[in-house]
């Protein structure tokens, strides 16, 4: 009896399985039919559109008005969710002219950067993002240009909107670092705080995780490479221009004995408002033999906000950097002009207003005030051997961006320096991003 029940149950199970799969098959057949019907619909629509384009009354040229949404979307409008192309090319670039007002012979024009981006989507959840950059037009042994990989990472989306990244990626720091295209900021040159204090475009190699808590909160965290203090050159003034810019590794044979951690939190819960901050910390000595700075730790913290009510675009940022345990290292640098600073910091306030808009043209004057110091303090060295901390440099910038559509920008501004007045300058620039 028992056996019979078991065999009956088994038989039932075996019978049920193909029925279930047949149901799946029917479902599949239905889906194929649906797709076929949709294809017919798209074909019909295309034919209708062609007929319209042929008709003399059809307002075809208007299509050119919105390049970003024009071509691929037209067919997607009636098809169900059709993914955009798997591989997307993007790019941005800028050519800048700087004219120091007190030193006309220092006027310079530079193809500041040209960047080609490629994003490829393997499937709905997995993609790779890469950006290739050339700076200063020509990169060769005799030229001062650079060729660099700005980012190259794979990203996978998990359940609940959680995203994991691996590779070389931009640190989620400040307002500019991840949105650094010339169309995304005001002024010909990037602001000083997010160049000298936060070394935009700051990227590290490693692992990252991003997600959101709901209510407008989003977070990023990661374990990556960090800075290499053994690169510090006390004889050069590179460290004075940007302490972190002088010791960043950018994924190039990056020393990885010490890894760094970062975390960022942003809130966008009120339309037009962004409030956020981030912290990055990691040791920078990499247990290098005979190196006096093995205990040094680099920490960067920043807070930022941006509010865009109506025609206004207001932003503010504060950044603070620290390199700890540099006493012994700086003692080996005595006599040099540029020891390692123990702290550097800066902040800016910026206000822009969309004054005039006509068709594709948008004219936005702006003003920015920034205050920054790349050598705010030094670790103590024996009296008489140290270098005095530098004063805060204060820069006022006034100018305007003229956007042509969404992808092209013409810029002009004037920058006035409080400390080093020889740097006062007029800047002109053209940039694009797509």
């Amino acid at each position, binding site marked *: 009896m028992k056996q019979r029940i078991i065999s009956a149950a088994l038989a039932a199970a075996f019978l049920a399985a193909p029925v279930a799969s047949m149901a799946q*098959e029917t479902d599949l057949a239905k889906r194929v039919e649906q797709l076929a019907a949709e294809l017919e619909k798209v074909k019909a629509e295309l034919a*209708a559109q062609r007929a319209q384009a042929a008709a003399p009354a059809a307002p075809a040229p208007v299509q050119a008005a919105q390049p*970003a*949404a024009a071509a691929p979307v037209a067919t997607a409008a009636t098809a169900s969710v059709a993914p955009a192309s798997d591989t997307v090319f993007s790019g941005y670039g800028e050519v800048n002219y700087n004219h120091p007002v007190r030193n006309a012979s220092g006027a310079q024009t530079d193809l500041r950067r040209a960047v080609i981006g490629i994003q490829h989507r393997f499937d709905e959840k997995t993609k790779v993002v890469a950006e290739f950059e050339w700076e200063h037009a020509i990169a060769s042994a005799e030229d001062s240009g650079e060729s660099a990989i700005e980012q190259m990472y794979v990203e996978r*989306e998990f*359940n609940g909107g959680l*995203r994991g990244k691996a590779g070389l990626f931009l640190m989620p720091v400040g307002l500019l670092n991840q949105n650094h295209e010339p169309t995304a900021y005001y002024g010909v040159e990037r602001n000083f705080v997010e160049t000298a204090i936060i070394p935009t475009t700051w990227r590290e190699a490693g692992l990252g995780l991003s997600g959101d808590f709901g209510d407008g909160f989003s977070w990023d965290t990661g374990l990556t490479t960090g800075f290499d203090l053994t690169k510090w050159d006390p004889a050069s003034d590179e460290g004075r221009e940007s302490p972190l810019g002088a010791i960043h590794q950018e994924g190039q044979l990056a020393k990885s004995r010490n890894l760094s951690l970062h975390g960022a939190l942003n809130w*966008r819960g009120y339309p037009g408002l962004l409030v956020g901050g981030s912290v990055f910390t990691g040791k920078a000595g990499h247990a290098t033999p005979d190196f006096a700075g093995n205990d040094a730790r680099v920490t960067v913290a920043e807070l930022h906000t941006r509010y*865009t009510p109506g025609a206004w675009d207001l932003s503010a940022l504060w950044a603070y950097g620290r390199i700890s345990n540099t006493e012994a290292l700086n003692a080996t640098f005595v006599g040099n002009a540029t020891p390692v600073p123990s702290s550097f910091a800066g902040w800016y306030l910026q206000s822009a207003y969309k004054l005039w808009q006509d068709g594709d043209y948008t004219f936005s004057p702006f003003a920015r005030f920034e205050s920054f110091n790349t050598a705010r303090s030094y670790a103590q060295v024996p009296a008489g051997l140290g270098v005095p901390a530098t004063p805060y440099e204060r820069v006022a910038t006034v100018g305007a961006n003229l956007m042509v559509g969404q992808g092209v920008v013409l810029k002009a501004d004037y920058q006035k320096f409080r400390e080093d007045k020889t740097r006062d300058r007029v800047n002109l620039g053209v940039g694009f991003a797509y």
Partner: protein
Amino acid sequence: MRYVPLIVLGACAVTAPVFATQYLSPEQAQKLMFPEADAFRAQPLTLDTAQMRQVEQLAGLPARSNQWRVVGAYKGGTLLGYMVLDDVIGKFELISYAVGLNPDASVRQVEILAYRESHGGEIRLPAWRKQFAGKSAKSGDLRIGAGINNISGATLSCTHVTDGVRRIAAIAQVALAR
């Protein structure tokens, strides 16, 4: 041949979680927009050339297509409003969204059905989408910077969805309003 159903099942299992970025189905969206409705009817809309020109004038944007996916929401035979389904490109990828409209062509609600970009998912936030409610193509405030506030870091997604909603509001004004 015996294994075909198994392969199909396996394929289904592999492809099932693929639409992780699909937050709502059109059916879920229409219920969210018109919870009181007892019937939804697909009412595909075909615009003629004159209507397309009117839409372009009203929206200041190309009408883009003459075919639109429209669903009418009814309660006891009375029209409550419409839902129009559409997709726009964010920065690189498609954003699928639905616009709920009142019978007078004013916007009732906007829902994001699928979002695929790495950044800018905040357009799904209710606070951002709420800005559209009550506005219409005629009121002139369905624009970023003039009625609709941007989301920092998601400028393109915000702009393209806002443009899309304005286009649909104009279509409703021209072809659906009563």
